[in-house]
């Protein structure tokens, strides 16, 4: 696009009263070599008259707009000019509202911001989406239990082709093994006949759903829209192309053999899964002699909430045991059910089911920690518990004990295997070979051909669950277009699994729709830009392949990286990682930000600082500080970046060689409970910059001149002081000795 520039400066919101507008326009134009006559100002740029001024210029060919006014976070509807490059220069919040008015400092600050804005447009271009050919909009669902079936039906009913792969010979998973289901609607009284068989029938008769039973995914190759999935069945392998994937691979009960202390192994101690099978067969009996069980004890948290077994709550066992207590009571009104619990967890309205069960005199609930199950003769058992109400120890006889067994996601075994492999790999090739030889390989679920590994990675500390790290974005995933549903994600009950599965259907649909338009998926779901590397200069150092948080970059046989662009989330981590600086987006590049930094005027006297601020949290926090009229340090220039992960080390050189005295990276909190929506942007930036600090030392520049500060969006009140403290520290050290060179 041949650019025709227009610079518009707003005088409203006290901008005009704080800054010499004419001088601002003249200086910025001169220094960026644009004609001064294209600089216009308006009293209220966002007013209909102001907008009309811009629109009439657009009519006569202006296509590159620099609007020096308020923050880009506001007035986005007014300043929306499709088909143009529009750059918002924030001189309201970052100057007029946060600086002493009409000072040399605030004038220089506004000038630097306007210059940077102009340079940004000079270095950028209008993006065009990258749409790959032969895309599929079909959705693969792995797992045919309640979650998988729900996801498949929801996607199919929205008009999408679905491929459903189930490893067992029949669909239904655990739900098909239940005698009855826990009530899930008001008034929470009666048990429900299994609903799964209706779903199976519906799926089997839905023409949009193609079902593979006794089948596994042998290989998943490609990228969203172009995922070639090899499905292996008894009759051979078949390759099917899909656009996105829902992983509903389900769970296993915790290995009851590890619960010997709760009596497992004794004939009359069974798990809750075995209890379902028994109830389905008919009477509740003692396996040892086939006699009807009259006193049935349920032990909650069998394995769960136990640091030696499962250090988490399996979420549905309380509901399950209450339901099974009802089996006991319904099948034999003389029988009693005794439930030993730590806490009864029936959150929400399911509390009403608990209340209903409490009203049954044949259901006894005892709080306590079960310490053991021992023989009482004739196949009967003693359940012993301590820490009961009133602090007593108790010993109760039962003729059947049911262990409310916990949940282990089917992602856990592959995750542990792969973690072990990574660890072994760190010790060298020999250790890796030994590991591969000596460790039984568990069933993998997706078998991705991705360089970063064959499965959806679990977040550290999630015990193998493929959960999202975000409260507010439950379908955040580190493998674009692959979404986890049901107990593979979190322990959850059947009705929760269905809600969750419907959500994954929507996300899988979004992914294929966005891929078809060449747009990113969450969190930059509007972005049509993409990384476009200049491969001639690539040295195959592989930093991009390693650092990409989404595994979007693979390597060819020679080890040269290449993008699977539909996996890319446009965070720019590769751009930050690349030592050759060859990765660029149309509207965001190393050269662009570098040029902006270099355009900052460094006075001979006094200090200058650059703050590279994460767009999502740090920048809005700065805005909020200004909205509260908190003063920002006038020697600091804020440069927004997509993510700190995109910060390239050369910007440090750009800054310090120009005489900038200090550089701050302002980004999200990292580590455990990281807040970066691109997983580890600020952490990677910190790692990279710890390296640069060594270089600074060699240049006789103090390492402190470059620092990463972690800030949350809510900490706007602390932010000005955080920056001031940094400025103060550098002022104490003294000016950059390279100043003036």
């Amino acid at each position, binding site marked *: 696009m041949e650019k025709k520039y227009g610079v518009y400066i707003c005088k409203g919101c006290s901008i005009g009263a704080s800054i010499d507008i004419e001088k601002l326009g003249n200086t910025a134009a001169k220094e960026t070599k644009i004609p001064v006559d294209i600089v216009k100002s308006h009293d209220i740029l966002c007013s209909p008259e102001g907008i009309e001024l811009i629109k009439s210029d657009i009519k006569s060919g202006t296509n590159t707009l620099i609007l020096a006014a308020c923050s880009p976070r506001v007035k986005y*509807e007014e300043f929306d000019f499709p088909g143009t490059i529009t750059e918002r220069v924030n001189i309201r919040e970052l100057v007029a509202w946060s600086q002493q008015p009409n000072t040399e400092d605030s004038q220089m600050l506004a000038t630097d911001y306007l210059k940077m804005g102009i340079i940004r447009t000079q270095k950028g271009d209008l993006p065009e989406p990258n749409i790959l050919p032969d895309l599929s909009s079909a959705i693969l669902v792995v797992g045919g239990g309640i979650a998988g079936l729900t996801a498949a039906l929801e996607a199919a009913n929205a008009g999408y082709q679905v491929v459903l792969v189930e490893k067992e010979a029949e669909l239904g998973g655990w739900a098909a093994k239940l005698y009855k289901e826990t009530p899930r609607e*008001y008034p929470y009284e009666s048990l429900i006949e299994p609903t799964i068989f209706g779903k199976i029938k519906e799926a089997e008769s839905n023409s949009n759903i193609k079902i593979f039973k006794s089948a596994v995914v042998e290989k998943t190759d490609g990228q969203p829209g172009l995922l070639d999935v090899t499905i292996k069945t008894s009759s051979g392998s078949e390759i099917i192309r899909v656009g996105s994937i829902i992983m509903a691979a389900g769970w296993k009960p915790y290995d009851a053999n590890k619960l010997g202390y709760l009596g497992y192994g004794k004939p009359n101690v069974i798990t809750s899964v075995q209890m379902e099978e028994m109830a389905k067969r008919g009477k509740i009996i003692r396996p040892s002699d086939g006699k009807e069980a009259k006193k049935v004890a349920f032990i909650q948290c069998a394995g769960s909430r136990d640091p030696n077994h499962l250090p988490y709550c399996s979420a549905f066992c309380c509901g399950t045991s209450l339901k099974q207590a009802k089996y006991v009571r319904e099948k034999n009104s003389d029988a009693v059910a005794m439930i030993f619990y730590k806490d009864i967890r029936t959150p929400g309205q399911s509390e009403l089911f608990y209340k209903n069960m409490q009203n049954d005199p044949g259901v006894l609930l005892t709080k306590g920690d079960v310490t053991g199950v021992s023989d009482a003769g004739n196949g009967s058992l003693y359940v012993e518990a301590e820490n009961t109400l009133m602090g007593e120890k108790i010993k109760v006889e039962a003729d059947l004990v049911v262990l409310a067994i916990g949940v282990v996601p089917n992602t856990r075994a592959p995750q542990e295997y792969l973690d072990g492999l990574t660890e072994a790999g760190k010790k060298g090739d020999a250790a890796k070979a030994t590991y591969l030889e000596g460790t039984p390989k568990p069933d993998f679920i997706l078998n991705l051909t991705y360089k970063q590994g064959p499965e959806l990675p679990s977040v550290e500390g999630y015990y193998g669950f493929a959960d999202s790290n975000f409260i*507010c974005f439950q379908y955040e995933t580190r493998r674009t277009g692959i979404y986890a549903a049901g107990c593979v994600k979190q322990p959850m009950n059947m009705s929760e699994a269905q809600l969750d599965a*419907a959500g994954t259907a929507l996300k899988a649909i*979004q992914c294929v729709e966005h891929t078809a338009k060449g747009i990113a998926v969450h969190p930059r779901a509007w972005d049509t830009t993409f990384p476009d590397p200049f491969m001639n200069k690539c040295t195959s150092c592989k930093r991009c392949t390693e650092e990409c948080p989404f595994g979007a970059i693979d390597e060819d046989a020679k080890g040269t990286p290449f993008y699977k662009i539909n996996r890319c989330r446009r965070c720019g981590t590769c751009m930050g990682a690349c030592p050759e600086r060859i990765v660029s987006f149309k509207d965001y590049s190393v050269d662009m930000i570098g040029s902006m930094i270099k355009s900052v005027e460094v006075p001979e006297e006094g200090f200058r600082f650059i703050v590279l601020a994460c767009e999502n949290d740090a920048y809005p926090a700065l805005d909020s500080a200004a909205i509260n009229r908190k003063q920002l340090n006038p020697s600091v220039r804020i440069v927004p970046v997509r993510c700190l992960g995109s910060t390239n080390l050369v910007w440090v050189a750009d800054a310090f060689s120009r005489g900038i005295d200090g550089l701050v990276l302002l980004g999200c909190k990292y580590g455990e409970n990281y807040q970066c929506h691109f997983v580890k942007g600020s952490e990677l930036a910190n790692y990279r910059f710890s390296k640069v600090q060594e270089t600074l030392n060699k240049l006789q520049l103090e390492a402190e001149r470059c620092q990463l500060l972690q800030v949350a969006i809510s900490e706007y009140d602390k932010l000005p002081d955080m920056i001031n403290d940094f400025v103060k520290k550098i002022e104490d050290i003294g000016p950059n000795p390279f100043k003036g060179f």
Partner: protein
Amino acid sequence: MSDGKSILVIGGGMSGLTAAIEAAEAGNSAVIVEKSPFLGGRVSQLNKYFPKLCPPNCGLEINFKRIKNSADITSYTLAEVENISGDEGNYDVTVKLKPRYVNDKCVGCNACYEACPVEMPNEFNFGLNNTRAAYIPHNQAFPFKYVIDDRFCKGAACKKCAEACKYDAIHLDMKPETVKLKVSAIVMATGWELYDTSKLDILGGGKIKNVITNMQMERLASPNGPTAGKILRPSDGKEVKNIAFVQCAGSRDENHLAYCSYICCMASLKQVTYIRDQYPDSKARVFYIDIRTPGTRYEQFYWKIKEDPNVTLTKGKVAKITEDAATGDVVLVAEDILAGKKITEKYDMVVLAAGMVPSTKASKIPADIKYTDDGFVLPSSLKKGLYAVGTVKSPLDVAKSVQDATGAAVKGIQSARRSK
């Protein structure tokens, strides 16, 4: 929104925002109708999310950015659905827009607030401080547009705000408007209200100054709250060094709310960290019936709190809460069930973990919908094209509301496509 394929989302809180945005990003247009002057709902009042202790404004910022970048989402604030008729694929909806008295020319400069002489209780802060009749609900509000509360504004008799506005943004003669929409499906995400703790007489709710609700605690701890994030007790602004949390304040009680409100255990454990982080020498005690922290991360969070020697978790019912008039301290009598004894203790402040009441308990959605006795929508009673999400259906946390709302988006899209 004349294509008739839109999904109407009633309620612009976390569930409603999610349903609308997710539907729009899947290619279906959506309309949000929100009764308050801003989007974000209850979560915008929270200081931190459990268990990550991250600020809700972070995710809201992304969601607002998604709205800004989408051509397929229309949102109305100060808006209420007045009438719904029709069937799936063809719903006619009447929406009433209350006057904001501030138009789109508002730049957010704060001049009207500075000029306004009328003080009123700050609802966003649950009355913990005052704001003025010309105000912005909070400093990260979206849209960032001021509003005039006509329950307090003196109107044309005063006009100080209109005179102060340089942008012709204030028109005190604005009238209510009516908008008619044609939509394919309706997602009800009207959320919840806090249980009125003044009904909890023996717990001193609404009467004793230093007995506050869990939502008030969120505001006290928020940097954009009434005390700029400093946790100070209401009666005298004293630092809170010794605090008690009373779980199930109203919930799991046949005389109040028979159900469990789902979030209060995690919310109180989270709020324990607010106090413990702010005042290292502080002590906190939680009185509970059962600690309900289901799943992996909630349970792990509970374990972490239990490790803190300054935190005591006591299974027991609180029998009575009174005020020590001389000091403003709060005297609490409870039964420690595991120890089998009665305890009486004095605290700087007590937080009632008040329950969740569906907004539909008080104001019903104008359509043929069945409710439980507690006011929750009965999902199985809904006719085609009507969907209930989040806490209007059952008490729920944010994470599961987001899952539910994302799923509702796919159902809305099915309705739109069925009606083609």
